């Protein structure tokens, strides 16, 4: 990671020049999102799954139910845990092994976007109040890393949840492997959580950056949208900063793009 890949540096310099003219190497407008393909139900071993391609960035998400004890302060609710692993699969730059600090950062953002939204009925995941409830693990893996892992992961996790079937329980309320109820996981689509991550270069905001563009930008901002509401903010690293007006602008852009992405996430292929 200490080696500087000169080709990437040169391309990032080009990207900066293009940004100044409000252009991008792939001819997108600064606020255009790359082609988004979502395939659900791709992994038969998962209780729900989705494969997201956002340009060249690819993320697979799989849901697995487990049974646990509810938290004392929400005895009649289940919970969700979103993890992201940026495995060595995705990029020559990324080490496998213990989760990188970046994977942790991105995973936490996605976790928070989904958890704060009101699209999941956590009470519906209770089994026996105070005793047993479902934990939904959403494990995400980057298969190709070409920038904007956060949004690709968020879309994959959300789509996998839409694909999720509720497992059958035996008489002692343990999960029966590979057997499902008729029921799908209930998701309130009006409140579906969608994240939008903006790069910033000088005073330009750039949506859905590629890996090269990530190198060119000075900082990054993620906003989570759920229906008409904002559910999460997260500013990334780098020397860049934001004015309050820019955050307001980001919220306007994100809410305007919301319906389109939501439709793609909900779409039954």
């Amino acid at each position, binding site marked *: 990671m200490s080696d500087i890949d000169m080709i990437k540096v040169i391309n990032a310099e080009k990207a900066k020049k293009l940004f100044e003219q409000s252009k991008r190497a792939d001819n997108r407008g600064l606020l255009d999102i790359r082609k988004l393909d979502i395939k659900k139900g791709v992994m038969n071993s998962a209780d729900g799954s989705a494969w997201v391609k956002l340009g060249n960035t690819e993320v697979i998400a799989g849901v697995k139910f487990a049974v646990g004890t509810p938290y004392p302060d929400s005895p009649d609710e289940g919970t969700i845990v979103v993890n992201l692993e940026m495995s060595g699969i995705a990029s020559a730059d990324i080490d496998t092994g213990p989760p990188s600090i970046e994977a942790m950062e991105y995973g936490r953002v996605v976790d928070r976007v989904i958890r*704060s939204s009101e699209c999941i009925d956590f009470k519906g995941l209770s089994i026996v109040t105070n005793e047993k409830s479902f934990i939904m693990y959403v494990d995400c893996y980057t298969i190709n890393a070409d920038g904007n892992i956060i949004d690709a992961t968020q879309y994959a996790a959300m789509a996998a949840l839409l694909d999720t079937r509720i497992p059958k329980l035996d008489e002692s309320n343990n999960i029966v492997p590979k057997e499902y109820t008729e029921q799908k996981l209930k998701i309130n689509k009006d409140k579906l959580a969608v994240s939008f991550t903006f790069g910033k270069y000088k005073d330009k905001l750039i949506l859905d950056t590629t890996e090269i563009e990530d190198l060119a930008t000075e900082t990054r901002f993620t906003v989570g949208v759920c229906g008409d509401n904002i*559910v999460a903010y*997260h500013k990334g690293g780098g020397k860049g*900063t934001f004015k309050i007006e820019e955050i307001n602008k980001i919220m306007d852009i994100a809410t305007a793009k919301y319906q389109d992405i939501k439709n793609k996430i909900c779409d039954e292929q």
Partner: protein
Amino acid sequence: MSQNKRPDGRATSQLRPISIRLGVNKNADGSCFLEWGKNTVVATVNGPRPIFPKHLADQTKAVIDYKYRMACFSVSERKSPVPGKRDKEISLVSGHALEAAVMVEQFPNTVIDVNVLILSADAGTRVAALTAASLAAADAGLPMRGLVSAVAAGRANGELILDLNKEDEDTPDAVDMATAFLMPQRELVLLQMDGCVNKKDCSKILETALKGAEVVYELQKKALVEKYPMDGEIQ
């Protein structure tokens, strides 16, 4: 924003009492002891120094190694001494915030160690910690673009309020937005939120936070001027 009193008697846009002492740690290059309501924080800054192992070095700037820790006894139920995901995430985003304020590009291939220990916690520890760390960095004499003035704002019981304490945070409709501004530039260097709020309220909360940050900034300047009396003044 209503000016109703909150359970602890504060107005909606009133900060808890903040007290600052600089240079409390003899062995650190810079340090700050900060009390913010019932939060108690010690922050130290050391460096820049050469980084080990060397392949962690950045040839273009100093790496800021920000470590946010909570004392085991700082919270209601004893916290495990092993740093959790929350600690690591706060360390990461706070380090990012400081990086935008410190002129790290002047010290390539080095590391600046920032250690913050929460001795007592009552909501808002990450902003108290960052406010203290920024002062410790200034106390260490690091060249800075400005100070980082951090504060939380949000919602409780239907009111948009500044500087939530634990009681505010535990209300059913609570929204907690942690912000940090580079001052006097008024630029956001940290912004995190959990909750579900409409756009308009988000903007209002941000404005409230900025006003709070301005108060924090004045207190920070005062503490620095007290320790380092100047002919002129920090702008």
